[in-house]
């Protein structure tokens, strides 16, 4: 009870200090970018958002003719969500980050923030999410920014067609985080030619510069941070589980909820040997296992599953997950991605392909188009040294770069939510 009193007093004190002119400092709680990336924004620091918004989830079949093997049976309809305002309002499309669905925690936070600010919101899964690959990817081979963005553009039109009679839309906006931010740039470019939506404003949140560089960084976070190498992953995992068990047993009022990682951080703080980089790497590796397996099975690439073996709904696939756990993004790039594009055009080289997977390939467009804004973090862990400076130079005054936050860790922090919503609000008036 005293604790709560303490917190209330503390809160009053903070408010007092802030009103005395200390505002302006950026007080997101984690200065360590790896902590920020893993823990995110604990609920007590979050921008207060409505608990419930009238979200509807619907499905769409982009390729009704496509034959889907049994093991992918539940992925053939693309799931997306939307929230509608009562009267006329601008419509904003949200694109999820690598491996994330329309329904990921970050997407839900964005959806709530924009709905609260008065927008119709449509949320779409990342083209790297298995559901998107099966239901909406033309090639079934994700990772190509331009092609994936074209698929997204088609999906956006299909969804819009379904809902346009019931949504009074005054303007179209677009945003995405992480990989979804990079795709937003490519979608905006495509929209300049196709002119279906004529996006008035487009916001990129924590985009990578070079997709290729960023995934190599993420691969290394796993491969370089498991003591004794990946052969010892199980022992590493057991240690993480028992560390969590320790937190759960001895921490104060620890429950399994969204704040569990934060409670763990508070309980163990400060321990410099906590395996944060490995945790980020694991999360990325799990996303890519899902993505690569889906592509392998769908396109019969013969990567880990024999080409002509048909996997049925309840077949055991555990061994494939173990094999994929050992394979990096570079393996996917060389084993599926490059061969796929070389089969279409034998003259394509690896270096050429890598070049297309970058915002640098849109430099002139991004540099000169007024419709863009960017929110990023100085210490984003998926960028190589110098890449944040490139983005700062590319977007100039259109960039808002926070000092901390790692990769997307601070998206739900009040300053960030204001920056995100505020960017579009300027255009709305």
């Amino acid at each position, binding site marked *: 009870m005293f604790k709560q009193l303490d917190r209330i007093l503390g809160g009053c004190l903070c408010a007092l200090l802030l009103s005395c002119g200390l505002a302006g400092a950026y007080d997101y709680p984690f200065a360590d970018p790896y902590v920020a990336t893993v823990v995110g924004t604990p609920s007590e620091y979050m921008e207060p958002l409505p*608990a419930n918004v009238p979200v509807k989830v619907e499905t769409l079949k982009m390729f009704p003719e496509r034959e889907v093997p049994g093991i992918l049976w539940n992925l053939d309809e693309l799931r997306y969500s939307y929230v509608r305002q009562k009267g006329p309002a601008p419509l904003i499309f949200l694109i999820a980050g690598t491996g994330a669905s329309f329904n990921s925690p970050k997407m839900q936070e964005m959806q709530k923030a924009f709905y609260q600010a008065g927008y119709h919101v449509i949320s779409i899964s990342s083209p790297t999410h298995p559901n998107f690959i099966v239901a909406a990817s033309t090639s079934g081979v994700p990772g190509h920014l331009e092609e994936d963005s074209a698929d997204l553009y088609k999906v956006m039109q299909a969804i819009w067609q379904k809902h346009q009679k019931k949504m009074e839309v005054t303007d179209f906006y677009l945003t995405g985080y992480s990989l979804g931010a990079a795709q937003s740039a490519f979608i905006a470019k495509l929209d300049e030619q196709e002119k279906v939506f004529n996006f008035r404003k487009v916001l990129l949140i924590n985009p990578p510069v070079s997709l290729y560089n960023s995934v190599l960084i993420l691969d290394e976070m796993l491969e370089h941070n498991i003591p004794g190498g990946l*052969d010892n992953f199980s022992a590493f995992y057991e240690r993480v589980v*028992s560390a969590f068990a320790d937190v*759960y047993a001895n921490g104060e009022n620890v429950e399994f909820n969204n704040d569990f990682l934060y409670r763990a951080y508070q309980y163990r703080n400060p321990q410099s040997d906590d395996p944060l980089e490995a945790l980020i790497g694991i999360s990325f590796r799990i996303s890519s296992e899902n993505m690569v397996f889906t592509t392998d099975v769908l396109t019969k690439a013969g990567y*880990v599953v024999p*080409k002509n*073996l048909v996997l*049925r709904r309840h077949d055991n696939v*555990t061994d494939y997950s173990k094999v994929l756990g050992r394979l990096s993004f570079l393996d996917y790039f060389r084993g599926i991605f490059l061969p796929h594009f070389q089969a279409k055009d034998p003259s394509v080289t690896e270096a050429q392909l890598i070049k297309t997977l970058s915002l640098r390939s849109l430099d002139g467009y991004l540099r000169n188009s007024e419709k863009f804004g960017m929110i990023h973090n100085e210490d984003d862990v998926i960028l190589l040294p110098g890449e944040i400076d490139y983005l700062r130079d590319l977007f100039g005054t259109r960039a808002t770069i926070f000092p901390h936050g790692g990769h997307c860790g601070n998206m739900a922090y009040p300053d960030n939510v204001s920056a995100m919503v505020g960017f579009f609000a300027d255009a709305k008036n």
Partner: protein
Amino acid sequence: MYKSIEHKLRILTIALAALAVLFVSGCSVTPKVDPDIAYEPPRHKVEDTLKETVVYAVDVYDPWEGFNRRAYTFNYYFDKFIFLPVVNTYEFITPNYVQKRVSNFVDNVYEFDNFTNNLFQLKFKRTGITLARFLVNTTLGIAGLWDPATDLGMPRQREDFGQTLGHYGVGDGPYIVLPLFGPSNLRDATGLATDSALFYLGPPNLVKDKAIRWTFTGVAAVDKRHRQSFRYYRSGSPFEYDMLRMLYKSKREIEIAR
């Protein structure tokens, strides 16, 4: 009339059980290999990549996998066509405020499980806290509709009989996906059965009216599903079954250690 509800529920239960049995029969999980087809080896072969000496975290003892994978799908359909529509209707017709009261009420009744299992594990302080919680919440919290005990520094001390068995060193046993209840293992399924038996021999026996007992069971089931955000096959991962199996094992390990 109550009798007929009970009768209908019983028939429904039997029908579901029969459906589950039908659904999970024919339980192979080995990919179907046609002897007449020459399979082109993939770029990364299982036998070349995996090593006998390495332990893989995703491997969990699962001798009944054929049954389990089908029970998993059965639960998906049960959720989709029966359970979730009921839960959604409940969420639609009741305000959040009422839902919260119902959750507190259900939790308060089930403090019985926490009480017995903390006692079985000789965790006397936690047993005491649980008892105090029950008394405070039943009185001050008006029949458990509110939870003032947590605000008074007496948080809920979750324990079940699976955890009690684990506390005394009983291992997981084979992984089981229970129809309707979901992921479990032999130890925890035994625990679940024991808790239910103790519960129904215990406090509900004081309530003689069967209609009330049935209603409570139903409301508790709906309330629990309402609070559980997990949805079968919604992660989008083709390895969801495997991942959940691994996480279930770890989660229980963490809970037992408390």
